[in-house]
C-alpha cells in the first residue's frame, strides 16, 4: 500500500511538471498539435480520395472506415501520451549510457522510464479520435448500448497495452544492439497499415499483423464489434488476452535486457 502511494505521489509530481511545461511553451505545444491534426486530416483525405473511385472496400463503407480510423487513434494516443519515453530507450538512452540513472534509483525501472515524460502531442491523436467517433455517433453507424460502451472502454485500454508492449519489446532489443530505433520505428510503422480491413492482404501478411505484431487487434478487428451486430464479443476477449501475453513477453525481455546492460564508454 505504501509503495502504491509512493508511486502515485511521484507520478502526480511528474504530471504537475508536465502541465507546467505545456504552459511554458504554449506555442510549441500548439505547433505539435497542429502537426498531428494535419497528419490525421490527410489520412482521412486519403480515404476520401480512394472512396471517390469505389463504393466500398471489402464490404466496408467510407463512414465505417472513418470510424475505424478514429477508433484506432485512441489507444494509439493513450500509449503515446503515457509511454513516449520508450522511444528514447531505443534510440539514445542505452547507447549513450544515460540509462544508468534508472538503474541507480530504488524504483521499478519500467515505471521510471515511462514516468519521465508525458507526450503532449498525443492530445492531438486523442482529440482527432474523439471527434471522429462523435461524428460516427451522429451518423448512427455505431451500436450503442451499455454492454458495447463497457467493451469500448476495455478495448481501448487493451489496445493501448498492445501498443506499449510492442514498443517495449522492440526498444528492449537496444540492450543487445545498442540502438534499436530502426527496429522500433519499422514495427510501429506497421500500425498505419492495420487501419484497413485485413481481408485485403495475402494470408501471410494478415497473419503477421494479427498475431505476430498484433496491430489488427488494436483497430480494425475490435472496431467491427461496434459496427456490425454479426461480430462476436470474443474479438475483444482475444484482444485482452493478446494484450496480457504480449505485455508479459515484452516485460520479461526488457528485464533480461537490463541484465545485459553494458552502459557506455566501452
Amino acid at each position, binding site marked *: 500500500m505504501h509503495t502504491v502511494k509512493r508511486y502515485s505521489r511521484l507520478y502526480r509530481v511528474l504530471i504537475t511538471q508536465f502541465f507546467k511545461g505545456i504552459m511554458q*511553451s504554449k*506555442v*510549441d*505545444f500548439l*505547433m*505539435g*498539435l*497542429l*502537426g*498531428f491534426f*494535419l*497528419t490525421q486530416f*490527410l489520412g482521412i*483525405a*486519403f480515404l476520401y*480520395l*480512394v472512396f*471517390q*473511385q*469505389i*463504393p*466500398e*472496400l*471489402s464490404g466496408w463503407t467510407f463512414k465505417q472506415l472513418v470510424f475505424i480510423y478514429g477508433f484506432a487513434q485512441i489507444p494509439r494516443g493513450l500509449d503515446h501520451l503515457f509511454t513516449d519515453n520508450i522511444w528514447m530507450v531505443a534510440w539514445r538512452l542505452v547507447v549513450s549510457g544515460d540509462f544508468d540513472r534508472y538503474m541507480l534509483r530504488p524504483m521499478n525501472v519500467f515505471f521510471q522510464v515511462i514516468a519521465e515524460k508525458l507526450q503532449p*502531442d498525443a492530445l492531438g491523436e486523442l482529440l482527432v479520435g474523439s471527434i471522429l467517433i462523435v461524428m460516427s455517433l451522429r451518423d448512427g453507424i455505431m451500436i450503442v448500448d451499455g454492454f458495447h460502451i463497457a467493451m469500448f472502454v476495455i478495448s481501448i485500454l487493451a489496445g493501448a497495452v498492445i501498443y506499449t508492449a510492442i514498443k517495449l519489446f522492440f526498444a528492449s*532489443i537496444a540492450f*543487445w*544492439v545498442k*540502438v*534499436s*530505433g*530502426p*527496429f522500433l520505428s*519499422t*514495427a510501429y*510503422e*506497421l500500425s498505419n*497499415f492495420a487501419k*484497413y*480491413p485485413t*481481408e*485485403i*492482404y*495475402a494470408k501471410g*501478411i494478415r497473419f*503477421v499483423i494479427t498475431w505476430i505484431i498484433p496491430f489488427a487487434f488494436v483497430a480494425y478487428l475490435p472496431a467491427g464489434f461496434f459496427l456490425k451486430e454479426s461480430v462476436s464479443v470474443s474479438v475483444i476477449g482475444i484482444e485482452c488476452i493478446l494484450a496480457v501475453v504480449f505485455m508479459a513477453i515484452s516485460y520479461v525481455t526488457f528485464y533480461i535486457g537490463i541484465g545485459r546492460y553494458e552502459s557506455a564508454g566501452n
Partner: protein
Amino acid sequence: MKKFCKIYLPFASNELKRQMSYKGAFYLFILVSLFGSFINYYLWMAIYGSSGKATIGNLTKNEMVIYVFMVYVTSSIVTITLADWVSEDVVKGSVAMNLIKPIDYRLSLMWRASGQMVYRFFVPGIFVWIGMEIYKVKALGMEVVSPVTALLYVVSSFLSFLLYLLFDFCFGMVAFFTTYIFGMLMAKEAMLSFLMGQLIPLSMFPSVAQKVFDFLPFSSMVYTPVMIYLGKYSGSELAFVMGRQVAWVIFLYLLGSLIWKKVTKRLVVLGG
C-alpha cells in the same frame, strides 16, 4: 576541384559508414520497408477489385503495381531529411562552430545526405527495382523498361534528390526560430507524402487540386520521376517536366542562400 572533394567527401563517406554500422538493423530494414510497400500494393489491388474500373486516375492496375514500387524506390533515394540534422545542430549549438570553419554548411549537409543516398540506392533500392522489373516481365507479361526511359528516370530522380534536399534545408532553417521542430517535421512529412504523390497518385486528385500542384515543387519530387518511368510523358511534355525540376532546384538554391544569410546574421547577433 580536388581540394573541394577532399573537404566534402568525408561528409558523405562518414554518413555511409554510420548507416552501415547498424548491422542488425540493416537486414531488418530491408525486410520491413518492403513489407510496407506490399501492404500498399494489396490495398490498391483491393481498390481495383472493388471498383471494377480498368483505370483509376489514368493508371491501369498493372501500372499501379509499378507505381507503388517505383514510388518506394524513388522516395528511398529522394527523401533524405536534412531538417533533423539541422535541428540537432541547432540544439547542440554546433552550427555556430560550422560558421568558424571555412566550410559551407549547406554543402556539408548535402554531401552527408549523398552518402545516405548512395547507401539507400543499394539497400535496398536497386534490388526492389530489379525485382519489380522481373515481376513485371514474368507475371504481368509487360516489356522490360527501355534503357532511355531508365536513364531519364535516374536523371530525374537525381534532380528530385537535389530538389528535396534544398527544400528541406530551407525547412530546417525553421529550427532556428522555434525550439519545437518535431511537430513541424511530422506535419511536413505528412504533407509531403501527400503532395509528392507517395500515398496516392496525384492524377487521382480533383482537377482543381492538380492545377495547384503544378505550381508547387512537391509534385516534381517523386511523382515526376515515377511518371517518367511509366512513360507517361513524351516529347515536349517530358522536356517541360524535367525543365520544371531544374527550375525548382535553382529557385530553392537561391532561396536557401537567402535564408541562410538571414540566419547567420541572426546567429552572429544572438549567438548560437
